[in-house]
């Protein structure tokens, strides 16, 4: 909950107390930052994904009929083959209809965004590339009805477009590498065609104002306004949290300015940094961000952050990944499955077998003898902790 701090309380340090209304009291840099913020807020609506489109995605049911198809096979096996044919055709039609006319669901989009996160991280793209890619993806999916099977291509295209706009030329891997690593099934020409389509549909307004833009500005303002540098979380930390939020479709409905502010406020709240919260509150007032809106998104962000920072591991879905190895290693792996040996097990006798009937000659044994002479069962330091040093003679 956003706590409304009373001014003049003992917790607040005097040097943080300020009022932003008097612009001339602030230094030039902060002044400029605030102006930027205001102008961006005015423009941000242009880059929001269409809300109706997002709603459709949220309500789209996941394709559920594909799996029961196999179950039907098992169930109807005893029946005549003719009947099975009919069912085959019927089920196939149903699958086709449901799969392709259901559109992209939120789950599908979220999974794709996570993939983009992995790819961006792997190729060393900046957070800006990732955030921009997600923005393009959401805007495109919100206005176009696409089949789920095209989502991988769209996702990678958005990432590529974003990378071209943000990253240095030398940092961008060639497209075929992008396709190979993402284990995609489409070709390079597919990718460039899709990029063109996306650019057209978004009216070439590709350089978007995203939540990241606001996050950076807010962070800069806070840094310039306070001398308590130690208390401010790093921008990398905030970026990571924003990325985690963007993985859920719901946050694409938020205004970027509000979302960024929610993330920051949430972090300060978690750190119990009352002074910082005060700055944020001033900022909010100055930029005319509605309380209820901020509160609403704060709540959702908090929930997202609990999931993100929980030490519980998510079991990775390993089946999606394809493990390609070279021919030699594949042969090696195959050969390495040790077959059960042909010789049957010889159980050790319950009586002491270490006594042989014919006395074994006393071979020159070391103190930890390998002889089967009686007494070898004696408990002792047969595992001295420095056994590593013992063996070498």
């Amino acid at each position: 909950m956003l706590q409304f701090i009373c001014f003049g309380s003992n917790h607040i340090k005097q040097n943080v107390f300020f009022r932003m209304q008097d612009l001339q009291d602030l230094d030039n840099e902060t002044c400029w930052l605030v102006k930027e913020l205001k102008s961006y807020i005015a423009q941000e609506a242009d880059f929001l994904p269409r809300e109706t489109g997002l709603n459709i995605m949220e309500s789209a049911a996941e394709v559920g009929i594909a799996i029961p198809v196999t179950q039907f096979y098992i169930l109807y096996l005893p029946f005549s083959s003719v009947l099975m044919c009919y069912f085959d055709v019927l089920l196939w039609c149903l699958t086709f209809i449901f799969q392709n006319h259901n559109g992209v669901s939120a789950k599908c989009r979220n999974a794709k965004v996570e993939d983009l996160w992995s790819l961006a991280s792997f190729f060393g793209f900046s957070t800006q590339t990732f955030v921009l890619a997600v923005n393009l993806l959401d805007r495109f999916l919100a206005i176009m009805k696409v089949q789920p099977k095209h989502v991988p291509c769209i996702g990678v295209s958005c990432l590529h477009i974003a990378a071209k706009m943000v990253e240095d030329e030398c940092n961008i891997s060639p497209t075929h590498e992008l396709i190979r690593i993402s284990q995609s099934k489409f070709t390079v020409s597919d990718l460039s065609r899709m990029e063109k389509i996306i650019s057209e549909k978004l009216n070439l307004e590709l350089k978007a104002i995203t939540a990241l833009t606001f996050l950076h500005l807010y962070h800069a303002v806070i840094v310039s306004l306070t001398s308590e540098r130690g208390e401010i979380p790093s921008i990398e930390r905030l970026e990571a949290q924003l990325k985690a939020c963007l993985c859920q479709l719901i946050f694409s409905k938020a205004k970027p300015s509000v979302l960024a502010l929610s993330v920051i406020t949430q972090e300060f709240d978690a750190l119990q940094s009352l002074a910082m919260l005060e700055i944020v509150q001033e900022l909010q007032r100055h930029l005319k961000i509605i309380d209820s809106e901020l509160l609403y998104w704060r709540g959702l962000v908090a929930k997202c952050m609990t999931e993100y920072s929980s030490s519980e591991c998510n079991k990775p879905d390993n089946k999606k990944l394809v493990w390609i190895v070279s021919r030699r290693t594949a042969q090696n792996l195959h050969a390495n499955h040790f077959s059960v040996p042909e010789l049957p097990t010889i159980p050790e006798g319950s009586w002491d077998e270490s006594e042989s009937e014919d006395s074994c000659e006393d071979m020159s044994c070391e103190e930890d003898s390998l002889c089967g002479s009686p007494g070898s069962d004696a408990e002792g330091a047969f595992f001295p902790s420095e056994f590593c040093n013992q063996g070498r003679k």
Partner: protein
Amino acid sequence: VSQAASWLKVDGFTRKSMRKAQKQKKSQGSSQFRTQTFTELSPLPQLKDAPSTEQQELFTQKLQQCCMLFDFMDSVTDLKSKEIKRATLNELVDYVSTNRGILVEAAYPEISNMICTNIFRTLPPSENPDFDPEEDEPTLEASWPHIQLVYEFLLRFLENPDFQPSIAKRYIDQKFVLQLLELFDSEDPRERDFLKTVLHRIYGKFLGLRAFIRKQINNIFLRFIYETDHFNGVAELLEILGSIINGFALPLKAEHKQFLMKVLIPMHTAKGLALFHAQLAYCVVQFLEKDPTLTEPVIRGLLKFWPKTCSQKEVMYLGEMEEILDVIEPTQFKKIQEPLFKQISRCVANPHFQVAERALYFWNNEYILSLIEENIDKILPIMFGSLYRISKEHWNPTIVALVYNVLKTLMEMNSTLFDELTASYKSDRQREKKKEQEREELWKKLDELKLSDAAALVQNNSHGLQNNNSNNNNHQENQEKGTAVIATDHEDPVVAMDTAENVKGVKTAK
């Protein structure tokens, strides 16, 4: 066959075996010296035709007949007698397999004599001193037509339902076992296969010999590891041991644990590991299944002996490690996870693509993944650096794709930790880059000054030496001061480069 197989391992060099095949083969040496004067064998009546009262006597006669040894080096002499012996041996094999009540007490010494005479011989020295078991064709035993049947007979004899160890132990004693073990060094794989089965049966039936057999095998292995590095029968002996280990009673005796740590683990260092690795790994895993507390010392032992220059061996070790991890208990895993994954992270970054692949493939193993999941906070920091580095630097595209899979898997396991490590890795890299840049600029400055101040340098040389002897090794301190002084030795042709300003700086510091 070996030629066909060798083409699979093409590396641009002519195979040794092809060169050798062009050399003329010497005839195989034989250690058997025929002291007996040769008498032709006269065929005896068939056992199945003989009346039951005479069978025992006939049986003995045939056994004695088979004690006559023949020279198979010579392929033309004594053909008729050789055939008679072969047929007789065949008949004896059948007789012992199908009939009951023939193993009377008197038969044992005759049987034992026949067997000993035929198979116990000093093995001829290998005609090929550079015999490479992986590449070369083994030298086969020339008298195999007879010896094979003798082995067959011995097996049937041991497996006969009427076989009595209490009688047989007078003849199958320690001396017998010793001689049997020596034969394991035979180059002929068929002979070793028989020996394996024979020794397995003897171990099973003669409880009194078990300790002796184990001790002798220990000795053979220790000799192999530390002295000769040569023994052809390691794989077969290990296979027998596998079935013995499988049958160990719990709790494990100290002797057995000793064997594991002092013999089996060091055996991994043998040069010819590829020949018996499957059996060796099986034995190790069997031990761990019997007693999981052995896991930590075993893994530490393997890590100690981890191959540093032989990639083929490294791939084998990784395979064995995966087999061990498949059966490991989570509590044991926690104890060795850090040294283990430090090694794995080195393997993953190995420029040899097979080693890197094999290490990365661990992440395709469900059980290993679940172990990593539980301990992700310890493991991810160890793996992260090398994974990230090779994703950018490795030459092999398959490896890069596999690294993506691994990173993605780890990222999904714990995003927070992953992000933290990414951030710190990036900042480390940036710091390194900055340092590199500074160093570059420093060198540039030096380059520029070299030409202009040549004269001044000669003058200042002695000054530089006096003032900076103490700073000889402390060039980091020098860097911070902005000096670029390099102290010289007498032999070192590089002249100390003092810039005019730096000399001043140094003087004031003093």
